[in-house]
C-alpha cells in the first residue's frame, strides 16, 4: 500500500500544502488545478506505523459544479461540531490524472481517477471567526482578489432564485472514509 500525503503540520492542519494562486483557475462552472512535483511522503503504514519515503506528486484535476446551490447555515454553536460554518455549495464532480515518484527513483506510477458516483462539492465557505459574515463578503473576495480571469461573481454564487436551502445536519459518522488520499493498493 502507498499513501502519498504532505503530513500533518505540528499544529494539526491536515495534509495541506500552500500553492501559488495561479495553480488554480476558476472559470464558469469549473475549477482546475495544475500542480507539479509537490513534495510529499509515502506513508507506508497509514494511518499508523513507521516508515516514510520522500516523494513528489503531480496532478491535474478539473472540478465541475452542477445543479442548484444550497445555502448552508451554522446549526451548532459547539466549536467541535462539523456544522458551525456557512456558505453556498453546489454538488460537483471531478476527474484528474496524476503521477507520483520516490525521490530516490525506486518507485514511480501514473494514473487517473474520477469522482463518478461519489460525493463532491464546491462553492464558498466561511468558518470560524468568518462564519457570522454575510455571503456577499465571500462573493466580493473571490474574483477581485484572485487576480484570475474568466470568473464572475454571479458564476460563483449562482442564481439566488435557484437556491436550494439545505442547512439541516444529516448523518454524523466516525469512520475514516477519507483515510487514503492518493493511495494505491496492489
Amino acid at each position, binding site marked *: 500500500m*502507498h499513501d*502519498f*500525503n504532505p503530513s500533518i*503540520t505540528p*499544529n*494539526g*492542519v*491536515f*495534509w*495541506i*500544502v*500552500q*500553492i501559488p494562486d495561479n495553480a488554480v483557475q476558476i472559470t464558469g462552472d469549473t475549477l482546475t*488545478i495544475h500542480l507539479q512535483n509537490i513534495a510529499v511522503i509515502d506513508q507506508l503504514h497509514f*494511518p*499508523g506505523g513507521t516508515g516514510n519515503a520522500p516523494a513528489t506528486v503531480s*496532478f491535474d484535476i478539473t*472540478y465541475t459544479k452542477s445543479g442548484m446551490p444550497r445555502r*448552508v447555515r451554522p*446549526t451548532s454553536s459547539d*466549536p467541535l461540531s*462539523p*456544522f*458551525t*460554518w456557512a456558505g453556498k455549495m453546489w454538488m460537483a464532480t*471531478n476527474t*484528474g490524472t496524476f503521477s507520483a515518484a520516490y525521490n530516490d527513483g525506486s518507485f*514511480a506510477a*501514473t*494514473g487517473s*481517477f474520477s*469522482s463518478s458516483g*461519489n*460525493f*463532491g*462539492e464546491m*462553492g464558498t*465557505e*466561511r*468558518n*470560524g471567526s*468568518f462564519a457570522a459574515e454575510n455571503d456577499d*463578503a465571500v462573493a466580493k*473576495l*473571490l474574483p477581485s*482578489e484572485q487576480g484570475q480571469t474568466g470568473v464572475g461573481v454571479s458564476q*460563483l454564487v449562482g442564481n439566488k432564485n435557484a437556491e436550494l436551502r*439545505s442547512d439541516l445536519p*444529516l*448523518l*454524523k*459518522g466516525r469512520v475514516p*472514509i*477519507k483515510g*487514503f*488520499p*492518493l*493511495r*494505491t493498493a*496492489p
Partner: protein
Amino acid sequence: MTKGIKIAGALCILFLCSLRLTGQVLPVPLPGGDIIQPFGLFNQFFPGVGAGFDGLNADPHGINNSRTFVAMGYTAGTATDSNGKTYNVITDIRVYQGDYIGAVPTYGAGGTTSAKAHGTFVEI
C-alpha cells in the same frame, strides 16, 4: 551623552521588539474533526451522506477562520507503476482559495500573533 546613548539604545530595542516577525501566516486547523481509533483526533471532517460520512453539510474545510472558495470530492481510479504493476487509487483532494486568519510566529519562544492572509491551499 552616555545617558542619551542609553536612552537611544533602549528605544531601538523597544522598537525592534515591537516589530512583528515577518513570514508565512500559518493556517490553523479546525478545532473539531473525526476521531480515528486508536490514533486519535484528525482535524478534518468527511462530508457526505451515508454510513461513515459526517453528513451533507459537514465542514469540508481543513483550515479554521477561513473565508474561501472550496472544492472537494472523493474519487476512485487506477494507476500503473514503472514495472507495469496496477493499483487501485482512492483520492480526496480538496482545494481552498481565499482569506484566512492564521498565526505568525512572534517574539520567539513559540509565541504567535493572529494575522489575516490570502492564500491557496491544496489538501492531498
